[in-house]
């Protein structure tokens, strides 16, 4: 039986790098899809609006685990075989998109509607209104909850081992299976997650305070 030593710890640290990469890539893909859904959710066309609303509601009402399974098997049924890392990123991106869409919709809606009127009276097109008037304000408002969601995302990357990818949690499991020193192994894994998530949580809370301060003036 192996004991839990440096080589095992290094294996776990390397896996933490994969967790970070997975977070960054799924967030990047998810934010593009999520942004599109946020704007669709606010569309003037009822069908588009309802479609986006249904998408968000459904993804938010099923477990992330099921989102992973569905997008993974769904992709393979339409004949797309992705390597585990991309399958995991793509599946997580679906989950990310629904939550970001909802957060960003709220942020866009909380920009006062007079801003829309002012912009259109300056003869801006809808695209220009979004680009120059609404989004710069909405992005500021959306920062605290978006960073807060990032914490949820980091934590939820822990379950992508179901699509066959070895990240931090899976690495912990593998080392535990070899060493049976669950406490040491999972403590290290937990500490690494904490070291990633805690600063993000604090940042989110800090941003919230800063934003509130600027609004009350």
């Amino acid at each position, binding site marked *: 039986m192996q004991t839990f030593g440096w080589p095992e710890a290094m294996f776990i640290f390397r896996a933490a790098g994969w967790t970070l990469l997975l977070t960054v890539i799924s967030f990047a893909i998810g934010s593009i899809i999520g942004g599109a859904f946020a704007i669709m959710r606010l569309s003037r066309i009822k069908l588009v609006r309802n479609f986006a609303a249904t998408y968000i509601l*459904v993804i938010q*009402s*099923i*477990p*992330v*685990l*099921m989102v992973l*399974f*569905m997008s993974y*098997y*769904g992709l393979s*049924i339409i004949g797309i075989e992705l390597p585990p890392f991309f399958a995991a990123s793509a599946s997580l991106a679906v989950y990310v998109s629904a939550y970001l869409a909802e957060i960003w919709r709220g942020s866009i809606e909380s920009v006062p509607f007079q801003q829309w009127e002012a912009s259109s009276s300056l003869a801006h097109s809808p695209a220009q209104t979004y680009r120059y008037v609404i989004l710069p304000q909405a992005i500021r408002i959306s920062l605290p909850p978006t960073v807060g969601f990032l*914490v949820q995302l*980091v*934590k*939820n990357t*822990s*379950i992508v081992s179901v699509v066959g990818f070895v990240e931090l*949690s899976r690495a*912990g*499991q593998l080392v*535990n299976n070899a060493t049976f*020193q*669950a*406490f040491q192994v*999972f*403590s290290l*894994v*937990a500490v690494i*997650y*904490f070291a990633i*998530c*805690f600063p993000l*949580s604090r940042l989110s809370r800090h941003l919230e305070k800063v934003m509130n301060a600027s609004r009350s003036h």
Partner: protein
Amino acid sequence: MQFDPVLAESDLILSGIWLTIWLSASAIVLGCSLAVLLVALRTLAGRWAGIVVDAYVELMRNTPFLIQLFMIFFGLPLLGIRMSGVEAALLTMTLNLGAYSTEIIRAGVESIHRSQFEAGVSLALSRRQVFQYVVLQPAFARVWPALSSQFVLMMLASSICSFISVQELSGAAAIVEQRTFRSFETYIIVTAVYLVMALSLKVFLLWLGRKLFPQVSGLSRLDAKAEAA
């Protein structure tokens, strides 16, 4: 797509649904009780109790549910505490939801104005009575929407318990998948079931909130008046 082989295993799926409901309901009741206890400790007991509660909350909120589950399921037996998968799942869910609810209820308690405490004390209520009737109940009413969505998230997160082969809905799905080799069909059905359960839970919690806190609309009206004045 063939749904028949999956539907033939509906007994297994039904028992999975039942276990998911049981786990979620128990975790909500236990987790909420734990949270109320911790908030009371944080509000009424000394500074050190507050620091310990805060540390617990931050620890649980910044580590994945899965790792907490592994810690309890694989770690505790090394200390001589043995428990079945279902027990470990319930304990982890309670501790996890307890931490999130503590944070939410604490925010509610902090939103109660100081003058309310003073009014309670001047009516000769005891510290415990003030906490229960003047602080806790209105605080609960205010944070009920946030608490409700946390409950729904917990119900959805219970699917992670299938990682330690607890046969709740996701665990049952994994077995059905192995027996029938119909992965996509199995997960379509199970996902639909989760969807129905989550939406029903949302509606139920909305109804429960109206039943438990009928005064909440009146309360917010009073607040609005106070702010206008």
